[in-house]
């Protein structure tokens, strides 16, 4: 789960990571007051779950409380479109107003779990303030990694190694090591999947500050962090994705017109690949998930057709835990309510596939039953041409 910069920074500060002074504003008036308190010259930052804010005009440096208010007016209630959002953008309902920090150098610092090393890895770079993927592509030698073995956890020497390797001045190294250690504590204690400071800035007077902050939390660990779910901002997500989450259905909104409903994440991805290969565009990824029953299948179907972009539907079920007859009944149930005129192509295989097909045939729903993926594509193309 993604959270906002201001939420991440509040957590960072709790763990002893220095962040710029500032406050969160929901109205231009509040933004003005915070700027007043901070002495006038501030940066106003749109709080959205998307990178590329700066280039998209979501970050404004201003010289007075009045200008801060103006900047907030220009952002609040608007949608911000960045290279990471769709063309519809993401809504800005809060801005972070912070003191402007003088910057001597910008560093990059992050922690993720490395699936191959099977341990957290601390990533540091002296090329901060940029997209780290770009740095990785152009200057891979500037990306440093330190694996944190779970037996010993973070040790100060790991921080020092990174700090020296980032060519920080000797006087700052101990402080940098402490900040890296604190970020690791955030990562472990808060069950994060990503903890990132980009940039971590060195000021001319030798201080280190987290100028930006990003923290992704492990959804699977919510059971031991009762407060985490309250950090969620559903406005930042696609409404259908939020809706799907309630039913424990994996749904990802895409740009095409072929609505997809599949059981199993791998098969769902394969289905998208097949559709794409046929020069059609999927409208979504949808994995009904384990332990699905009739009601869940019906809910999944409703989600697929709720997307106004969807013009045709492909249902791909391999019966296992979820039997094909159960899936068929779920489809029939949802169709009965919705009566969508959309063409529906269904491929069923595995446990009780025959029964499932029978149920669909008997239901009178105008589904096109196909035997395999090839035929499914042919049918989808045919209905797409009309």
């Amino acid at each position: 789960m993604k959270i906002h910069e201001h939420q991440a920074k509040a957590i960072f500060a709790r763990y002893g990571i220095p962040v710029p002074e500032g406050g969160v504003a929901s109205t231009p008036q509040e933004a003005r007051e915070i700027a007043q308190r901070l002495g006038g010259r501030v940066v106003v930052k749109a709080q959205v779950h998307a990178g590329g804010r700066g280039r998209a005009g979501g970050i404004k440096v201003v010289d007075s409380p009045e200008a801060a208010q103006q900047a907030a007016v220009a952002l609040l209630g608007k949608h911000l479109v960045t290279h990471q959002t769709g063309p519809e953008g993401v809504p800005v309902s809060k801005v972070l107003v912070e003191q402007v920090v003088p910057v001597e150098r910008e560093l990059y610092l992050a922690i993720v779990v490395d699936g191959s090393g099977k341990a957290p890895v601390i990533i540091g770079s002296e090329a901060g303030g940029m997209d780290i993927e770009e740095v990785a592509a152009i200057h891979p030698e500037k990306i440093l990694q330190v694996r944190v073995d779970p037996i010993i956890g973070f040790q100060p020497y790991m921080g020092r190694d990174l700090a020296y390797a980032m060519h920080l001045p000797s006087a700052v190294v101990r402080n940098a090591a402490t900040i890296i250690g604190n970020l690791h504590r955030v990562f472990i204690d808060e069950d994060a999947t990503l903890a990132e400071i980009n940039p971590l800035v060195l000021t001319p007077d030798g201080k280190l500050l987290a100028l930006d902050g990003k923290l992704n939390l492990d959804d699977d660990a919510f059971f031991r962090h009762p407060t985490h779910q309250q950090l969620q901002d559903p406005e930042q997500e696609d409404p259908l994705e939020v809706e799907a989450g309630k039913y424990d259905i994996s749904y990802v909104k895409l740009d095409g017109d072929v609505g997809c409903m599949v059981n199993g994440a791998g098969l769902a991805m394969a289905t998208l690949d097949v559709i794409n290969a046929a020069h059609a565009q999927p409208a979504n990824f949808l994995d009904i998930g384990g332990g699905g029953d009739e009601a869940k299948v019906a809910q999944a179907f409703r989600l697929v057709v709720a997307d106004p972009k969807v013009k045709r539907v492909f249902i791909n079920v391999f019966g296992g835990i979820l039997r094909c007859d159960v899936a068929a009944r779920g489809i029939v149930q949802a169709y009965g309510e919705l009566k969508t005129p959309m063409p529906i192509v269904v491929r069923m295989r595995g446990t009780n596939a025959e029964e499932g097909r029978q149920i669909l045939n008997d239901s009178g729903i105008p589904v096109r039953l196909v035997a395999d993926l090839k035929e499914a594509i042919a049918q989808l193309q045919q209905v797409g041409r009309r």
Partner: protein
Amino acid sequence: MILVNENTRVVVQGITGREGGFHAERCMAYGTQIVAGVTPGRGGTLWQDKVPVFDTMEQAVRETGANCSLIFVPAPFATDAILEAVDAGIGVIACITEGIPVQESVKVYSYLKDKRVHLIGPNCPGLISPGARCKVGIMPGDIHRPGTIGVVSRSGTLTYEAVAQLTEAGLGQSTCVGIGGDPVTGTDFVDILKLFNKDPDTEGVVLIGEIGGAKEQEAARYIKRSFKKPVVALVVGATAPPGKRMGHAGAIITGVSGRAEEKIRALREAGATIVPSPGEIGVTMKRALRR
């Protein structure tokens, strides 16, 4: 066949739960020897009038000689269950449970990496050796046929798809292993490939990867260096957008190496035959064997 066979004696952790009971039943129906169940507090009872239930894994292993465990315990308790199985001396553990925090899996792996135990999963369909009628998982048994093709996959239903296509193409399976969809799993492609490499029953392997992480690249390196049998590989998620979790916790593109095209390139360069489309797994394997 690898990991499970006719000598496999399975204890089901969480057998008295809904899912655990459902699948224990189906495993038994397929032919698996389910010798015990474990649910703390239910020790001394009989499950379905057939299978003795114990309070602890230590008791279950001592009393029944179980050597394999199938775990359905809910995520908040699953780490405890896995570690209990490890310490009870179980050799093969299949953890079906989805939703274990990744940092728990980091700890679990660190603990068992030097022990003589294979943890399959978590978040996986389990494993099956059709020739021994031994199914330790949630896959539909009836699509499998005894044979000489090994299957290893990060996916569930896509594995069933692969198996169905193999069976249809007349190719039975030695063992099929779903290593699981989490970013950190107990067993990776390489671990299973090493076993298939030494397994006289296995003539060729179907490998099914997906976006996220670098497990496929590791597999490619191992195949290039040491694997002696034909590999047919499918990697899905080529059209997934970056930064989005595609169902599996591990199926999220966070860097260049996580992209499907990178994985496919690595596997192709390592000599694997790439499946052109998910519908052609069976026929591709058939062709690869003929060469």
